[in-house]
């Protein structure tokens, strides 16, 4: 009886890997298929046959119509299953691991016969026939399994994925990418597992999500995220003592996330001031905990947290003079900063320092105790930072943490943040970085069907890169829109805002009563991810505009005497800090707004990652203070 059948079961020796729309499909090669069957396989996606051993490939060649030179099959072509030759193909061997996958494939025009149900299951699914006829996505229920070969497991029948008719979800987000390789390596396994974990959420099918809207997007679970964040600001259990070296991070992550959700955080002011007071060291800066050395990352977090709660009380707690001297001691001759005295030097340190210096309006002069000090005054706190950033761009176009390392999303944000503080992004980013390569790399971080960003080439999506990578785009846009050498970044957006929002609201949230945002489905939510996933959501929901750079800023300051270069640096940074970032809700042409109005979070400053009003209030306050 003609029809389409699915063969499945864990026992099949693997024959070939077929990449189907929406699922990893493996064509089983099994002696149980009768030779006379002449089963044919419809392959709707490119097929690559793997690991033919020389001899078996020979024996099977007469039956398999697969172009020998590439081992690639073509979508829509019909291939004949090899007949009885159970040794046809070995299992995939990668490193030490053996991979067995539940086999499943579609067989057309086969005669349904009773077979040993333990080993082969033939089932006719008319819907599959239809889906094969059209281009609608099919889905095979294929999951990586361990190599236990438990014979009793027979894959249960799951019809190919037919999109929920009540939700409008583009197939881009419901199926595997159409171009995929069959070679299995640990990287591709991890990637497949991630896609498998994300798909139910993306398809509007996860029973963990309480409400999907008509676009198949979950709503933002404010009512659980808010208590979750407040809990992290409260007393934490002892098992979190690993965070003893980074307590100010909790202040920033939670207060920023609460702010993004529209909460008033000024109520935390008094407690925050008292808490950071005892983390501040007399030699300047804030430590991760009481008695810890001051660290640029924790100082950055503490300063931003103080800016978030605002108020003179908060501003006055910072010992700016000590901070300034401490920053000078961290400044290195190559332009970068050590993260703490004797600590490592990386681009994160440079970004944190640049934020602190400009938010606190610290003088840029160095004292002789700085390793970068020069008697002629030609070097200041910001000198050489841009060159340091430049030395971190890699051949891939992205930015590494230190020169000669791998491009990484989080460092990309730090790099762009640094440059945007030093000068108008249209000048600084374009001058010090290879912008087209950078954009190419940033754009490559977004994956389908997940929609989220990964941190590096061939790594997995992770919610926090919604900020680290997603947050780069407003800066890139400001760079492009103020430049006349490269096309402006108008419609459509350089990244898929829809994809990112889908990922964040479906996969990036914890949907249980626990609340909080997370890396990906299967991971626990935490304060770090809650903050940066919401930051990313804000980046996707808003559009920033920065006025093009004024043309003559560079020459004005030089006349005031002193060293020209140093004075220029100061003037440019001052202008960059004063530049007005205007924000609009993103109302692009990408399509309808897929999220509910109430789920729009607050905008945050693309460089300082706190609301613009907080940046302004803090800078204005220190602007009125004479000296320290």
């Amino acid at each position, binding site marked *: 009886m003609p029809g389409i059948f699915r063969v499945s079961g864990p026992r099949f020796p693997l024959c070939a890997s077929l990449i189907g729309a929406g699922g990893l499909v493996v064509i089983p090669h099994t002696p149980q298929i009768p030779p006379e069957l002449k089963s044919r396989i419809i392959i709707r996606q*490119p097929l690559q046959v793997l690991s033919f051993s020389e001899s078996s490939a020979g024996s099977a060649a007469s039956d398999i119509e697969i172009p020998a030179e590439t081992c*690639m099959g073509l979508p*829509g072509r019909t291939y004949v299953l090899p007949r009885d030759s159970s040794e046809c193909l070995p299992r995939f061997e*990668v*490193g030490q691991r053996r991979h067995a996958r539940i086999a499943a494939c579609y067989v057309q025009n086969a005669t349904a016969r009773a077979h040993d149900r333990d080993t082969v299951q033939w089932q006719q699914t008319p819907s599959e026939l239809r889906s094969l006829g059209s281009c609608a996505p099919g889905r095979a229920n294929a999951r990586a399994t361990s190599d236990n070969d438990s014979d009793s497991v027979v894959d249960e029948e799951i019809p190919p994925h037919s999109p929920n008719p009540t939700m409008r979800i583009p197939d881009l987000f419901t199926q595997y*990418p159409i171009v995929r*390789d069959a*070679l299995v*390596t640990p*990287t591709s396994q991890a990637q497949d597992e991630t896609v498998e974990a994300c798909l139910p959420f993306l398809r509007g099918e996860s029973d963990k999500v309480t409400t999907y809207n008509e676009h198949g997007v979950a709503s933002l679970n404010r009512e659980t995220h808010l208590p979750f964040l407040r*809990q*992290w*600001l*409260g*007393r*934490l*259990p*002892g*098992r979190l*003592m690993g965070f*003893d*070296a*980074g307590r100010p991070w*909790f202040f920033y992550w939670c207060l920023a996330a609460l702010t993004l959700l529209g909460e008033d955080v000024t109520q935390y002011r008094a407690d*925050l001031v008292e*808490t950071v*007071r*005892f983390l501040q060291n007399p030699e300047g800066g804030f430590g*991760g*905990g*009481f*008695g*810890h*050395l001051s660290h640029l990352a924790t100082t950055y977090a503490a300063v931003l947290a103080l800016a978030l709660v605002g108020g003179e009380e908060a501003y006055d707690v910072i010992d700016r003079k000590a901070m300034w001297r401490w920053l000078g001691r961290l400044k290195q001759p190559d332009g970068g900063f050590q993260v*703490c*005295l004797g600590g*490592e030097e990386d681009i994160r340190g440079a970004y944190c320092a640049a934020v602190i210096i400009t938010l606190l309006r610290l003088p840029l002069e160095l004292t002789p105790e700085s390793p970068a000090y020069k008697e002629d005054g030609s070097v200041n706190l910001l000198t050489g930072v841009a060159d340091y950033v*430049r030395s971190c761009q890699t*051949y891939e176009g992205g930015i*590494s*943490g230190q020169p000669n390392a*791998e491009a990484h999303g*989080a*460092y990309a944000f730090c790099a762009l943040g640094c440059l945007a503080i030093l000068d108008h992004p249209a000048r600084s980013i374009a001058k010090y970085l290879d912008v*087209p390569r950078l*954009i190419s790399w940033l754009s490559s971080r977004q994956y389908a069907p997940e929609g989220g960003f990964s941190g*590096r*080439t061939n790594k997995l999506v*992770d919610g926090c890169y919604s900020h680290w990578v997603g947050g780069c785009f407003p800066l890139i846009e400001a760079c492009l829109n103020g430049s006349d050498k*490269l096309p402006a970044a108008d419609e459509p*957006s350089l*990244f898929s805002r829809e994809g990112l929002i889908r990922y964040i609201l479906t996969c990036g949230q914890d949907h*249980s*009563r*626990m609340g909080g945002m997370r890396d990906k*489905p299967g*991971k626990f939510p*935490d*304060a*770090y991810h809650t903050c940066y996933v919401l930051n990313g959501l804000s980046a996707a929901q808003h559009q920033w505009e920065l006025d093009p750079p004024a043309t003559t800023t560079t020459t004005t300051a030089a006349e005031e005497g002193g060293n020209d270069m140093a004075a220029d640096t100061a003037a440019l940074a001052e202008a960059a800090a004063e530049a007005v970032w205007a924000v609009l809700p993103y109302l692009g042409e990408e399509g309808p707004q897929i999220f509910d109005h109430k789920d729009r979070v607050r905008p945050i400053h693309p460089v300082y990652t706190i609301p613009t009003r907080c940046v302004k209030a803090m800078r204005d306050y220190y602007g009125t203070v004479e000296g320290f």
Partner: protein
Amino acid sequence: MPPKKKGGGKGKASQASKPPTATTEEKATSKDNATADKPPTKEKAKANDSAIGPALPPSSTTATTDPPPATSTTLPETQTILERTRARFTAARPYEAHLIFGPQQQQQSGPLPGKEPGLGGLGDLQPQERSAWLATRIAARIARRPALSATATTVGSATAELARVACGGGAKTIKEVWRIVNEGSVPLRAAGEKQFLGSATGPVSRRIVRWEGLSSQAKGPSAGAGAGKQVPSSSRESQTIAAAEARWERRVRLTCLSAESRCFRAQRDRERRGVCDDRTGERVVVTEQEVVEEKRRRLEIAALRREMSGQGAGSAARGVGKIASDPEWDDVVPVVLEEPEGALASIAYPADYAEAMSYLRAVMKANEHSERCLWLTEYIIKMNASHYTVWLYRAAIIFALKKSIADEIEWLNKIALANLKNYQIWHHRHLLVENHFPSISSDPSAIATFAASERQFLERILAEDTKNYHVWSYRSYLVNKLGLFSDPDELASIERMIDDDVRNNSAWSHRFFLVFSHPDRATPGVAATEPDPKVPPEIVDREVAYAQSKIRLAPQNQSPWNYLRGVLVKGGRKLSEVEGFTEEFVKGLGKGEEEEDVKSTHALDLLAEIYAEQGRKEEADLSLQRLGQKWDRIRFGYWEWRRRCLGMGAAAA
């Protein structure tokens, strides 16, 4: 990674990501999650801490919330018990009894106002009684030490003599001991127990009732349901007596131990000051054995205090911690953390960690570089490896004491394998290499040996975590520092990793660094994305071929494509050089659904650049268009921007 969790980092910290679970309801939720999802493995290691939750009230407060017992009825009974116990105790151990209960008249008339009877005990002893008491304790101690007891001259030697031996001094010493005991107000009891000891008022009976409940619980099912409430009065009485007696025993033991401990401290102090023994004229020395005993003693004191304050064994809050119980640390005054009221995100530190931190603050303040500090850093690192401060301090100590770098690296290897996501470890290693290198820099064979052992370890740890960012960063540092660019083993090692997983981008990045940052082939100051005339053409050819061979394995793998493009640019080549190769992966572009076949979107991307380079704008545009429309739709906006680049004549490359 920047602001790290793992530390957290993703320091991570990696990533202790579970939020505090304050209520049982939430615990249930997270449990549900745990069954559905894999809990972070790091959690397991710290599972023992989870019992100490902020919401968990100390058991002493539960006592006060117990339903008040029928005080009036138990009162006389308890008094009887007390009296009976005291009588028995006093008969057997007069000095201790005196010490604990105070003089007889007090006992009879009840506690004097303002003076706790139990605390008054020591002061009320007659001098000779004190000596006698102390001496019996000391004698008991000496009896356990054959070596010393042999020196006790006669069997009937005076207790004072024994004391002198023990304390290393004469009568003056004993006096001094007692002065210390008194002035230091030896904690003869935990505060919560005063009432119980002193009088039979409400709290006492309450406490006793609680014990009763506990003991019946401990008896388990045999005691029957509700047995705790319905014990016959006689059995209740005997239980109470037994419990009270056990308590006296503990109290007495604690007192004795405390006194002995004071003796030890005095002795230690004398040793430090270089005081000579009155008797022998030799300088006072505290033996190893005595230190060991003192450690044991302090642990016992701590345990007793915990028991008596009714706290669980896991908490050393009111007892003595591991460090405080080590005589080695007697001279350090710990800097205790006192968080402000209402502090945000305050962590309920486990007692051991809190204690260690308070000692760390003290020794760091004093800038002490010693063996014991080295031990302390290890102790803390094993509890919290992301503690950057303690790592830097450790490095300073290692260098100050001129410790063997090889030993330290060996130690570090173990820590690194246990903390894969930690990155402080790698900076520490960096510092070690910086310090070590000058000693081997002039000896190529020593460098080669060191490089080989480092590589061996790096391979091992990368086998566990193939893309660990900080390990790779360290590896590139090491190559630079030791000049391993031409080392064939390094390149071979990287090739093995690429063979294991051709998608390991970290390995590809390292290869690029190895090949193109080679000082013989790199012009300083040339950016990674810029051509460098110093690169020899044969190197470019070799790398192009290598990348191409790997692309064929999995054409949709972006790593070798990025590499290929990077190599061509670095070598100053035209991208068109690989036009033929790239076109292998793109067929029938624009010729309709049937014909068009793209095996690699990265090939199509490169092809668009190649066409643009050759001025074939329409084909370039078509390539980009097809990428956005069909083959790589998630990047539609980017491909559109690239099309606009063509229009502007910008190479977009």
